[in-house]
């Protein structure tokens, strides 16, 4: 039913969280088997309003407020998906996702493999993630690497309203479990034109947001905002609008190494930016790939600009942890100016 012909262009000016809402609305309208469950997603429309209006529109049977029990939210989603529904479970903040891990790792990620294809778990776990909104402890985590390590999962992170819309639709259409992490710092930061035409974007692919020849900047999630600003500024200042290439990883698992390799072979320099703690973060996997496959093309060492291996400070000091435009710019400058 996801037929493009039925969906002529329908552009709306929306924020990232509104784009999420639009995609959910679209998917639920098109496919009766799509249901949602989570805490406060019903009348309240989610604490960030991502599900605003959907219970009213689709009823309590399809938009379910659950008891406060993340383990059950994930476990029930596994059961629902096995039984032919497409559950979209919301975890209110990524800091509360850990109780779901047993179900995601032991079941969602394995059901297809365990039964040799007899059963499967097409489900989406949505959670807002990342810091920078002056929220209390546990409301700022970026632990996407935990999920990226698990065979059988997909992890997707959008960084603009349009990518949020298209990637969420893709996640819902995908026949396997997808962890869909929403950079909450970007939820309302900007408003863009999004075509509400039901078109999914490709999974397993990154997005080259700016083309460039001298350095490859790779990031995802909320950091894309600062990366874009830095790249546009540096490209403009240098008078070379093809100086820095910016790749939005978007598909955190699996990683689109083909695009990354292509870019680094061209530029010979790479800076990776992520908000999560450095050690064993997703940036490590990208840098490792470079160490294995692209060293010969590298003109300078790979640089990771990441969160520290500390707990994200409470909000009074969180800016000392978060990555600024200046931090990114400094790393790029250093990479551009160093040579083996």
């Amino acid at each position, binding site marked *: 039913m996801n037929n493009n012909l039925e969906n002529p262009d329908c552009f709306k000016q929306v924020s990232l969280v509104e784009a999420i809402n639009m995609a959910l609305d679209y998917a639920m309208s098109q496919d009766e088997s799509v*249901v949602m469950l989570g805490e406060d997603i019903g009348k309240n429309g989610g604490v960030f309003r991502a599900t605003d209006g959907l219970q009213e529109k689709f009823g309590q*049977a*399809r938009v*379910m407020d*659950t*008891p406060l*029990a993340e*383990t*059950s939210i*994930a*476990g*029930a*989603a*596994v*059961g*629902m*998906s*096995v*039984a*032919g*529904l497409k*559950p979209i479970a919301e975890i209110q903040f990524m800091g509360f996702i850990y109780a779901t891990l*047993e*179900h995601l790792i*032991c*079941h969602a990620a394995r*059901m*297809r*493999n*365990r*039964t*040799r*294809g*007899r*059963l*499967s778990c097409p489900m989406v776990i949505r959670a807002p993630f990342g810091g920078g909104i002056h929220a209390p402890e546990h409301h700022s985590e970026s632990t996407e690497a935990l999920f990226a390590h698990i*065979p*059988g999962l*997909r992890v997707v992170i959008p960084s603009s309203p349009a990518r949020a819309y298209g990637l969420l639709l893709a996640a819902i259409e*995908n*026949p*396997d479990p997808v962890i869909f992490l929403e950079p909450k710092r970007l939820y309302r930061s900007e408003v863009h034109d999004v075509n509400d035409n039901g078109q999914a974007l490709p*999974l*397993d692919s990154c997005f080259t947001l700016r083309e460039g020849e001298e350095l490859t900047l790779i990031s995802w999630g909320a950091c894309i905002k600062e990366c874009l600003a830095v790249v546009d500024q540096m490209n403009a200042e240098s008078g070379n609008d093809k100086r820095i290439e910016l790749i939005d990883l978007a598909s955190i698992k*699996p*990683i*689109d*190494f*083909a695009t990354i390799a292509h870019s680094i072979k061209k530029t010979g320099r790479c800076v990776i930016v992520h908000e999560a703690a450095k050690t064993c973060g997703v940036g490590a996997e990208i840098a490792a790939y470079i160490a294995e496959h692209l060293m010969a093309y590298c003109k300078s060492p790979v640089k990771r600009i990441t969160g520290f291996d500390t707990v994200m400070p409470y909000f009074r000091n969180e800016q000392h942890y978060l990555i600024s435009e200046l931090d990114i710019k400094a790393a790029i400058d250093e990479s551009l100016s160093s040579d083996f």
Partner: protein
Amino acid sequence: MMPHNNPLQYLSAEGEPLTERGGRHELPDFVNDQSLLLQAYRWMNLTRAFDQKAVALQRTGIIGTYPSSLGQEAISVACGMALAQDDVFVPYYRDHGSLLVRGNLMEHLLLYWGGDERGSAYVAKAGSALDMPICVPIATQASHAVGIASALKIQQKRQAVLCTLGDGASSKGDFLEALNLAGSWHLPVVFVINNNQWAISVPRHIQSGAPTLAQKASAAAIPSMQVDGNDFIAMYEALTEGLHRARQRKGPMLIEAISYRLSDHTTADDASRYRGQEEVDKAWKNEPIKRLQNFIFQRGYWDKKAEGCLQDDCQTQLEKSVQAYKSIEAEQPEAMFDYMYQTWPAALDDQVVTCGEKYKRNYLAAQQHSSGFNKGA
């Protein structure tokens, strides 16, 4: 529902009908259904024969670690028989009896315990396409059961879900949360705790200070009952009622089936480390097969000749299944990739190639030296 600490029981340990126990005086009508009782008796015997065979196969390295269901055949077979074909069964790992009744082939059960994923790949002949695979992480299946039950409700179907677990599992948050969700959402699901008194070496009394496990349901205001899990008639009755209620949209139910694990926890366990033989000897007096046998003998449904035929028949079926199992070749190494994702991620291309090269390297070496490489497949 039955009061607690007074398990539903129809037959004495010797198979005599009780009249004054468990609050129910008359045997249920279905005891007049000779074929039903004989079916049950046959399945219980096949389950036990399978069990003995599986233990033996483990001892000789033909399968891996195996959890015996010795002494718990009434629970398991009653579960299998009370289920309607399109009810959904969500088992744990000690449910060989139910799986057999559901129409799973013995060779597939062996395949599973022989370390081959294809053991969970087949649809049970007498079961639902949604019947879940064996679940190893304790109690997690309870969450899946409520998810499936919720799906059935949303899809406005009239099936029930039956979920089994152990007494140990009744301590885990998954189960407790699942009970609560089932109650809150009024879901068509029946939980059966196979209270076999032990969770590996941990005795029942350490699991909970509660005198009964049935009372865990009151936290969720779900009706519950204790049942003598060695009394097929009581188990079948309770399960039939629970599943009927669920199908009638009357909500969830919890059954605590009281039994005893006559075997070691698994073939990897040595129960003599932590429990005395007297306890086990005493429990043998309560075992379920003899009880039902005595009853059907008394009723005139069964005789020595039939018994002899049954045992022969079990052995014949078993032989055939073991042969069938042994004839199934291992999957290709690359099969480990085939079912990870339905839409193939290009990022895995290289790994499949590596897997093939690795196989060739190690396999060739094994051919040449027949050492230095762990044979198996």
